[in-house]
């Protein structure tokens, strides 16, 4: 048994623990850039429109306590696009959630971008239309370095929200 070596080993252990508990530092992001976070959750329209029932049928169903709609569950994929200064940086189709693809579709993307003034345009399509977009919003913003710029979407509030 050698207490001196023991002390040394203990000290080495403490140094090992102490050092690795904070170092080496991890460089997550360049402090000069800004980050755009796009996050939205929205239910697109159904693939097939609901069957139109006659008022008599609706009545019958209501009396029996059955659902008064008859709809195919599956929803359309959500199309989302993001432009920065005219160039499309993001273009994707989000699949609706749920086993029968009848839930809302979610989009969550993070993009690194140089700080400064940019024109940001966000577009969303939730219907079966071939061209064009159901929702769109464009704004010229000043992105500060080392900060997040978030884009969210709330249909009831009118569409995209920039922050």
């Amino acid at each position, binding site marked *: *048994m*050698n*207490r001196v*070596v*023991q002390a*040394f*080993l*203990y*000290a080495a*252990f*403490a140094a*090992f*623990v*102490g050092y*690795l*508990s*904070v*170092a*080496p*530092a*991890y*460089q*997550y*992001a*360049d*402090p000069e*850039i*800004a*980050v755009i*976070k796009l*996050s939205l*959750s929205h239910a697109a329209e159904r693939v097939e429109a609901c069957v139109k029932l006659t008022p008599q049928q609706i009545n019958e169903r209501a009396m029996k306590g059955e659902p008064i709609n008859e709809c195919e569950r599956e929803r359309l994929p959500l199309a989302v696009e993001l432009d920065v200064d005219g160039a499309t940086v993001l273009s994707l189709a989000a699949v609706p*959630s*749920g086993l029968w693809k009848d*839930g*809302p579709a*979610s989009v*969550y993307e*993070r993009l690194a971008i140089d700080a400064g003034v940019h024109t940001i345009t966000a577009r969303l399509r939730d219907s079966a239309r071939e061209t064009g977009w159901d929702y769109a919003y464009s704004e010229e913003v000043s992105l500060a370095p*080392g*900060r*997040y710029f*978030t884009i*969210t979407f709330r249909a009831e509030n009118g569409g995209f929200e920039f*922050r």
Partner: protein
Amino acid sequence: MELIKRALAHAFARFEAVFEYAFGQRNTPFAWLGALGWYFYWIVAATGVYLYIFFDTGITDAYASVEYMTHDQWYAAGIMRSLHRYASDALVVVVVLHIFREFAFDRLRGRRFFAWLTGLPLLAFIYLCGISGYWLVWDQLAQYIAVATTEWLDTLPLFGEPIANNFLNSTTLGGRFFTLMVFIHIFGPLFMLLLMWVHIQRHSQAKVNPPRPLAIGTLAVLVILSLVFPAVSQGPADLDVVPAELGFDWFYLAGYPLLDLVPGGQLWLYLFAAFLVLAVLPWIPPAERVPAAAVNLENCNGCTRCFDDCPFGAINMVPRSDGRAYESEPVVNVNQCTSCGICVGSCPTSTPFRRSGPLQPGIELPDRSIADLRDELVAGTGETRVIVFACDTGDTDELEQDGVKVIRLPCVGMLPPSFVDFALARHHAEGVMIAGCAEGDCQHRLGNDWTIERMARRRDPYLRQRVDERRLCLSWLPRDSTRRRQRALAEFRVTLSEIDDE
């Protein structure tokens, strides 16, 4: 696989040599890694309780309360906080070493799978607790962890809406999510304690308390570390700000940078694959099927010595079944018996002096009978000067030499002390050497401890008083100690010749 194990075992042996020198064989931390894990857990839990008293749950209050503890109450809560962190880190160190060591020394194979398998969820919980702990501080590091973890969890089809939305920007975080983290960080460790208890179920007299010198030493050095290098937070969390440079606790967060290199979904796959591989290790390659110990009721009266000595709890005492007046009999659980033979060494009828009829004790290993043991001992009498009883784990091939007979056992704990007496009293040898694993590191957990106690006449069956202890040499050495073992044997032979000259 064997090569990896052998290389790892060799690496451990080299690395541990300096620890054996500094701490002594009995108290080297490497024989107590699991126990140190328990010990650090208690330190973390105790400091955690204290911290919780002063911790304010809440998005804004959390950071402030931790700052208060770290700076204003630095002499108590501050030290507690640092100790809490460093003991958690130390826990990871010993647990990782523990995992590699048990693997390298082949202590998880076949019927010993239980501790290994139950250790895997334990490992997951250690990380769950550690990571949620860093979350609670709600500093920049916590912010990074929160965003990275929720984004990673979102790659699994678990949530309808991404939970990372909670951390989208400074307007989105609700207090309830925070409370969830506190819940996880408190009940996680509690559940972990249950898992720790399960982990040691098949080990009788599990080592959960490190020896006092180690306990004092590690606590002291962690407290000193806490005083010299206090743990601090990294600036309050602001979800609108992108974290740039972060001081990382690599013990718990080493996996996070991978999220920047590899897609989250892939990382989950790798993680699950890794756990799967670890889980099947006890059976890859399949362990040799050695027959379990077998009870012979004719020679058993239910004295319970085998039950007391079994290191794996594989023997249970049940009511007598053969109609004799004895109260109980031992039953061997063949799924837990590792065929170490320690029970055979404890049985009072395992004595070579008995000669009428076949030598059959109350409990025995079918493929290593003590009748064979006696035959081996007796064979070559006259030429044998020293009999060495050696365990299968040590390297004892090199001990064979003129005048030395080496008899191998699965564990030296299998040797009934009466064999030592028999060898010496009946003049089958001039000296007996028992060559086993390092103290505190028996491959079968308790074999060398029991042998020491039996030979010292402190544990039944006692070595007979008449045995001249100078003619008995107990040699406890780590693996890869061939030369030390040879030296011990040579020294023993010199001692023996000196006794004869008297």
